[in-house]
């Protein structure tokens, strides 16, 4: 099953809407709370990243009976050094954005922590794509 959500860059008030919709779906699918919690946290981080750094983005979630694959594609500055960006505490957020509690540099590493596999690719000056996969049953991992 496919699910798509569009994100506008800079609209902090709406960050979390996609995570909430996916959460509702996972609840109706009777996914274990500890698993859906991880998915929702990772997705929320992803949304915040797009809102804070990119101009626009699209979230695609694909759910089948073993896993959820979330692809977050944004148009934005991209990431020059992914390895560096993966480090906890690394952030390019402006001071204003940080003051609101976003962009503390937990984003990517937190997403990795809360998913079973994560792939990032980025073209500086063009945008970033993050693919998150999480298995839906605790014994499938």
């Amino acid at each position: 099953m496919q699910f798509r959500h569009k994100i506008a860059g800079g609209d902090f008030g709406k960050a979390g809407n996609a995570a909430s919709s996916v959460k509702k779906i996972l609840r109706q699918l009777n996914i274990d709370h500890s698993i859906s919690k991880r998915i929702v946290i990772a997705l929320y981080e992803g949304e915040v990243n797009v809102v804070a750094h990119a101009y626009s983005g699209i979230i695609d979630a694909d759910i089948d009976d073993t896993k959820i694959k979330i692809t977050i594609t944004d148009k934005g500055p991209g990431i020059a050094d992914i390895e560096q960006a993966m480090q906890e505490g690394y952030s390019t957020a402006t001071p204003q954005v940080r003051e609101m509690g976003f962009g503390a540099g937990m984003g990517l590493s937190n997403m990795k922590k809360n998913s079973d596999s994560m792939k990032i690719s980025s073209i500086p000056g063009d945008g970033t794509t993050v693919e998150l996969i999480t298995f839906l049953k605790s014994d499938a991992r």
Partner: protein
Amino acid sequence: MDFHHALFVDNDLCIGCTHCMTICPTQAIRVRNGKAIILANRCVDCGECYKACPVSAIGVEQDDLEMIFKYPVRVILIPSVLIGQFPRKIMTSGIYNALKDIGFTHIYEVENTVDMVLEAGKQYMHEHKIRPLISSYCPAIVRLIQVKYPSLVGNIMKVNPPIDMSAMYYREKLKSSGIPQDEIGLFYATPCAAKIAAVKSPVGEVESAVTGVININFLYNRILNYLQRKYTETEPPQTDDLLSSKGILWSLTRGELVHSNGRALAIDGIKNVNEFLENIENEKFDNIDFLELRACDESCAGGILISGNRFLTVERLKNRAAEYKARENDKTRKPLDGFLNLNEHGFLGNIEPRPMGKLDEDLSAALKKMERKRRLMCYLPGFDCAGCGAPDCQTLAEDIVQGDAQVSHCIFLQQQMTSQNLLSQEQAVRITGNIWGKERLEKNCNKLGAEDENN
């Protein structure tokens, strides 16, 4: 498994108006045969439906007062919001005497044990690292989390609320004075339906120490009646030796919060709580240690069984607390005797999540249903008119995939189906009748705004 609920629909009064259905925070109501029905696995006993009903068709069950006379010792545990409803010039002694006149032999205030609740809370916070911890005080909130935010069940602070702590305390205390256990009837004057449900089907404990519940609005009328007949303003004020200013304010908004350590927030009103928990579940807000969440606006002063104005109730309780505060330094105040042991009596057992709205236990089956639901939503009009007997289009779509409703229940799709001869006129009339009741389609001038509205 069935869950006990204190709210019910009185079919003789219900006019099937949908007010309760559209306001319910857990989509627990449907209309069938012209009457509202409450779905037991979704209802959290918050009472929003009770407040919304224009004809008072939502009832709150209560134990028969006669039942108290089965016990030689008849204890009434009163929450401070009972006292807060009466104007200040009425001394508490008048209220106490009225309760004795009604038939109670012992009167205690529920909030006498808040120091123990606090102690248990501190210990719990120390032993559990999970944050934010959510107060277990309001049973409607505990139930809301169980059904709607199952992933937060582990955040509930499993500490016995004052009502249970006090019921256990007084039971032990009376027993120790030589009264046999089965001669003690412990009754709770409840401000809301949620507390009744909590006594009748406790979450996280095997059996409640409370024998029965008496609704506060019932007592309020009886007390007023007594005061009119017997009250003299010369009665000396009665003070409860164990009560503290802390206890008096406990059931009000911020009543718990002011004593908590770390960063804490207090939120009242179920709509506000819902919005906030949604964000907490996403971990949008970080670094919060404690949440005091209450289903009612102005917390228990706004309970559905409180007849007095909630804002005045809050004001009076604040004044009462100030008076008690003044005498708290007075060393003659008795401390709580040691009838309870924190480890034995202070904590709740396991609280189970019971998520509502799951489409199927089996993931592949649930996925199929979800796909069907989403396809259905492409056809349903999406403006949530409730004409189908469900609160909104999404809920109808879910009911359809679960086999509890049909596509033809939607009045718009039904019209289309009749125009395409997929459904006969008679069938359509029958379907509408099944939802809204046969009489709905007949002339009736007794309704509000019609020719004979007052007849």
